[in-house]
Structures are given as structure tokens and as C-alpha cells.
């Protein structure tokens, strides 16, 4: 829309703002602000894209290629195509490890949900003033190195650890120390300790968005506190439940540090198996195949979830 000089002058005091002809930068900026996809908007995502290509996509591709090579006699790679690693990975011998990993991850996710939901609920509805501090407390374990945290757990739970020391020697409540380490419960407990924030934060995010007026409307219509929760708050927090469960479950399946330090042979997980192939066994092709199976499993699960969610959105459920 072209405007003559006279029209601009007629606009009065604001004319000086529009007097300057828009330069190329103005046009670029306004196109970005309008949400048009130009080379400038691509520029904004370029650093992240480059990072992901170099440090995520490339390594995964490398592992994919390696998984189809063979192991040489001294652990070096033999560059010839073979599917033997996958055939070996899918033999029944490794099935218990896979199932154990899925089971531990599932148990961890369920426990995180059970512990995290009340916390997120209280955070959203009751502790408005102290919210910031409570979130900081929740995140505190993140601020220390995870190795330091895990060694601390060993110091606390070990055979000669703090708990046994107190129970056996200080108070004499037990005659022999309890074995905490190398037990499934302890490994799962460790996983819960590490992944709880991944569950709480999305839960809090979706619970906090539930308007108070919905809760009042439910009560107004005759719902007691339990019915209000079950029929209104819980269904509206489901997106957070799903997001938190995915964010907890996926890293749990691949976790190896917790089982490595707090567990033992009885709690050997997929993560430990893969890690051992790359270190002790020096069988990179087999480790790669295992890693790819894990990636495929998780990616498949995610795609399935997304598809279900999209169907839910189309039906207006979410």
C-alpha cells in the first residue's frame, strides 16, 4: 500500500516514526516477527541443527554402521557386512537382560509417578509461596555430579556403611549387617532417586495449568474432594503423566551407572551389557547392535505414543 508524502504528514506527531524508509534489516526483522519462514528463521535453528547433526546423528550413524561389521581377533573392526551381531543379540540368552531392563524402568516409572504426583499436586495447589524453594530442593541432586551422588549412596548403604553401622554397632538392633547393595530394590531405588525430577516437573507443569475454577465447578456440582480429583484433576493432568513417564522410562532403560555401582550380577541391565561390550569384551560390533536394538525399541515406543496422542488430539481428548 503506497502512501503519498502528504498522507504521512497528515498523520501528525507520529510521522517521524514512519518517515524512514524500511531497510533490508527492517524487512527481515518484520518477516521473522510475522512468523514467515525465510532464510533468517532457518538461521535461528542452524546452531542447534548443526550440533545435533555432529554430536547425535553422526554417532548414531557410526554405531549403525559398526553394528553390521565383525569383530576381529583382538577386538579391532573387520569392515565386512554381516548381520551376525543382530542374530546373536536376539538369541534367548540376552532376553532376560532386556526384560529386566524394561521391568526396572517400568517399576522406576511407576514409583516416580506414585511419589511424584502428590508432590507435584501439593506444589501446584498448596505451596504457592514456597514453590521456588521446593523446586530447588527437588533439583538439588542434579547439581552434584551423579558419580559423587552414587558413591555417597554406597557410603550410606554399603556393608560397612552408615546405615549398617548405626543399626548393628551403635544401637545393636541387628546382629548382622543388612545387604543393601546388589539387590534389585536398591537399584530401582537409586533409579527413582535420579529420575524423580524428570517425572515431577512435567506433572507440575500440567497440574499447575488446571484452572482453580474447574475444581470449584466440580465441587459446585456435588463432587466431593475425591470425586473432584478423579473426574477433573487427574484426567486434566494426563498429558503431564504421559510426558513424565516417557522422560523417566526412556533414560532408565539405557541406564548403566546405577546398576554398575549399586547393583551386581543379579541386577545386570542392558546398559551394563552394552557398556561391557565396548570396554571389557572389546566387541564393538555386538555392542553397537545391542545399542541399535535399544534405540529402535525406544523410538518405536515414542512413535506409537505420538500416534496415539495425535488420535487423542483429533478426538479432542487432550
Amino acid at each position, binding site marked *: 500500500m503506497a502512501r503519498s508524502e502528504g498522507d504521512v504528514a497528515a498523520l501528525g506527531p507520529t510521522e517521524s516514526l514512519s518517515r524512514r524508509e524500511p531497510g533490508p534489516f527492517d524487512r527481515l526483522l518484520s518477516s521473522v516477527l510475522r512468523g514467515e519462514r525465510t532464510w533468517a528463521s532457518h538461521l535461528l535453528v542452524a546452531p542447534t541443527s548443526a550440533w545435533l547433526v555432529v554430536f547425535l546423528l553422526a554417532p548414531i550413524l557410526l554405531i549403525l554402521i559398526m553394528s553390521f561389521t565383525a569383530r576381529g581377533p583382538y577386538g579391532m573392526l573387520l569392515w565386512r557386512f554381516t548381520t551376525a551381531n543382530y542374530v546373536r543379540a536376539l538369541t534367548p540368552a540376552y532376553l532376560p537382560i532386556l526384560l529386566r531392563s524394561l521391568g526396572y524402568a517400568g517399576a522406576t516409572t511407576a514409583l516416580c509417578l506414585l511419589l511424584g504426583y502428590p508432590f507435584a499436586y501439593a506444589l501446584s495447589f498448596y505451596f504457592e509461596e514456597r514453590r521456588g524453594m521446593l523446586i530447588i530442593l527437588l533439583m538439588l541432586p542434579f547439581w552434584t555430579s551423579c558419580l559423587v551422588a552414587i558413591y555417597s549412596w554406597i557410603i550410606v548403604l554399603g556393608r560397612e556403611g552408615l546405615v549398617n553401622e548405626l543399626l548393628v554397632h551403635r544401637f545393636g538392633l541387628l546382629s548382622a549387617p543388612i545387604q543393601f547393595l546388589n539387590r534389585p530394590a536398591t537399584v530401582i531405588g537409586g533409579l527413582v532417586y535420579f529420575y524423580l525430577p524428570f517425572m515431577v516437573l512435567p506433572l507440575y507443569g500440567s497440574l499447575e495449568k488446571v484452572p482453580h*475454577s*474447574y475444581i*470449584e*465447578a466440580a*465441587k*459446585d*456440582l456435588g463432587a466431593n474432594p475425591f470425586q473432584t480429583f478423579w473426574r477433573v484433576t487427574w484426567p*486434566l493432568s494426563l498429558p503431564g503423566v504421559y510426558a513424565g513417564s516417557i522422560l523417566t522410562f526412556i533414560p532408565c532403560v539405557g541406564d548403566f551407572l546405577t546398576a554398575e555401582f549399586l547393583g551386581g550380577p543379579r541386577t545386570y541391565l542392558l546398559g551394563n551389557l552394552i557398556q561391557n561390550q565396548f570396554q571389557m569384551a572389546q566387541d564393538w560390533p555386538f555392542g553397537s547392535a545391542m545399542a541399535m536394538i535399544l534405540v529402535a525399541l525406544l523410538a518405536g515406543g515414542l512413535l506409537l505414543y505420538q500416534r496415539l496422542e495425535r488420535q487423542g488430539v483429533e478426538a479432542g481428548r*487432550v
Partner: protein
Amino acid sequence: MPEPLLRLESISKSFGSTPILKGISLEVQAGEFLTLLGPSGCGKTTTLRVIGGFEHPDDGRVFLAGAEVTDLPPYRRDVHTVFQNYALFPHLNVAENVAFGLVLRGMPKGAADVRVREALALVKLSGFESRRISQISGGQQQRVALARALVGRPSLLLLDEPLGALDLKLRKAMQLELKAIQRKLGLAFIYVTHDQEEALTMSDRIAVFNHGVIEQLGAPKDIYEHPRSSFVADFIGAANILDAKLTRLTDTEAVLLLENEVELRVPRPKTLDAAEGETVRVALRPERIEVLFSQASASASGLTHLPALLREAVYLGSATQIFLEPFKTGKTLVATTMDPVEKQLNGNASGQRVWLEIRPSDIRILERSAA
């Protein structure tokens, strides 16, 4: 006198150190349409929330059909609320929203379906049963909220500015429709609004709130014609508020000196808490001032004529608003006329000499002047 449906007994409520309600007492009869009217922050919504059970009063008691409910939670009271933002559940469709209260009561599905269909027909939303809340317009959401509150057949419905988010035209249509539904079902409505026109259109009685107290409670006509304070006169409709000295007071008559200048004899109001010699506020509605463009012959009909300067005339479509200066103090009066006056205004109107015609009985004596 039968036991009223709702009785509030000197309800007080503070938030922190800010008093919101200062001893509200109120009675609502079955089938009555009562409007709580006032500016924002006057306590009308808090009163509604006390009745609904969402706020516990610091002091005072709430009775529903004779039984005290002050300490009962909302879900144990036989009242339902239509919330300002509707608060429809986004995870349920239209029919599920309406059925929400019935399902909680354990009503069998077949019976509940019939009731839901009836309620939706009542608000003219038949056929919308399976729509998502996000798929219907604001006006339709408003109707769903109404159906959801009505379907449980409460004896008392609370409505918190339910039409506030609708555009003017839809709001006008819904006002009449709400009133029709209320009459048809014979329900008592307590309706909160800050829109005085809405209050006048719909209510059997209006309670005008100001700073946590009820300034005046009465029928719309009563409140409009006989406001008891300058706040009420100013809030309901437009009013010219003037200072006047009560120079003489007899059993039937009061003599007022308006703005220290114009003497008027007006009928003595039934209630008056000012004595001779005191200064009071008086109100005069703009539509009760006639503007004459030539001096009228002194009439014997008890009308008063005042010369004035015309300051401005604003064309409003159906009416014209005329700003006048009848006093030496320069105090401006507003008059509204439905007559076409463009011709007499001769283009540039300001400064033109005109005459005001006032009927002294249209002047309302309000409270004592603070000054």
C-alpha cells in the same frame, strides 16, 4: 411470611487486612430474581461465593431453606453456580459436561440422558451433545454452563457475571432468554453484574453494593426513581449530582437553594436524615431536564425555568446529550433529549443561550453533603 429460600445474617469477610464484606444481610424468596450490582471490588462476587460455599465468612451465618449451611462445603449445598468463565471441563463433551452432576449422584444413564437432553433443549442446544467444548462458540459455552447448572434442578442458581464475555448484541438476547428460563422454571436467581442496564432489565430486586455494604435494596424502578445516595443515583443510570442547602423544611415541603443560587420548592421525601440549614446532595436525571431554545412564558404548571449557557451537544444516535451551564459556579449539567435539535443548534452551538425546564418533584434529595 414464609421462611425465605436464602437468608444471609450479617456476613463479614476480610482478605488479609482488607475488609471485603461488612455485615451483609439479605433475604431471597423462592422464584425471585435478585441482582447484586456494584463496581468491581465492592464485594458482590464474594457474597455470591459465600452463598455457594467457596468462601467461609469470618462472621455471620448463611441459611438455605431455613437450615444453616455456613460450614457446609459447596458439594453439600443445594445451589449451583454459573461461573464467569463458564469453567466447562475441556476433557468432556457437551453432554458429559451437563451430565456431570447427575452422574455424581448415581443417576442411571437412561434417566440422566433424558434430563441432559431436556436441559440442552431448554438452552436451545439440541444436537450439540457430542461436541467438544473447544468446538463451540463463547455464546454456546455460556448456554452449556447454564444447562449444566440447571440440570440438577437446584432451588437457587448463582450467576457470576455470566454474560460478561459476550458481545453486546448476544448479551441483550441472552438477558431476555435467561429471564424467560428463570420464569419458566420458577427458580430463584442471584445474579452478579456491574452492568446497571442488565440489572434493570432482568431483576425483581436489585441490591446495590458499595465498599462491602448494601447501599440500597429494592425493585429496579424504586432504585432508579428514588436513589437513596449519590452513589446509587450515579451508578444506576446517569445523574446530575448537585449540592443544595436545605433552607426551610416543613411537613410537606423542602426549600432548596441549589448551588447557592437557585431556590426550588420540592416535596419533602419520606425519609430524610438532614435538618434545616444543612447542605445535602440532590440528583436530577438528564432525561428529566427539558432544553428550550427560546424563553417560555412563565407557566403556572409548577415548572421551573432556568437560563443557561449551552456548552456542547453530543449526537448519540437515538438521543442527543446537551451539556449546560446554568450556574455562576460553572457547574455543568447534562440533559438528554430524544427530540431532533440540530436545527436549533445552528452549527456552532457553544455559548448559545437556552432555558432549562425542570419539574421540582423530579429532584431527589440524597444524603447529607460531606462538605
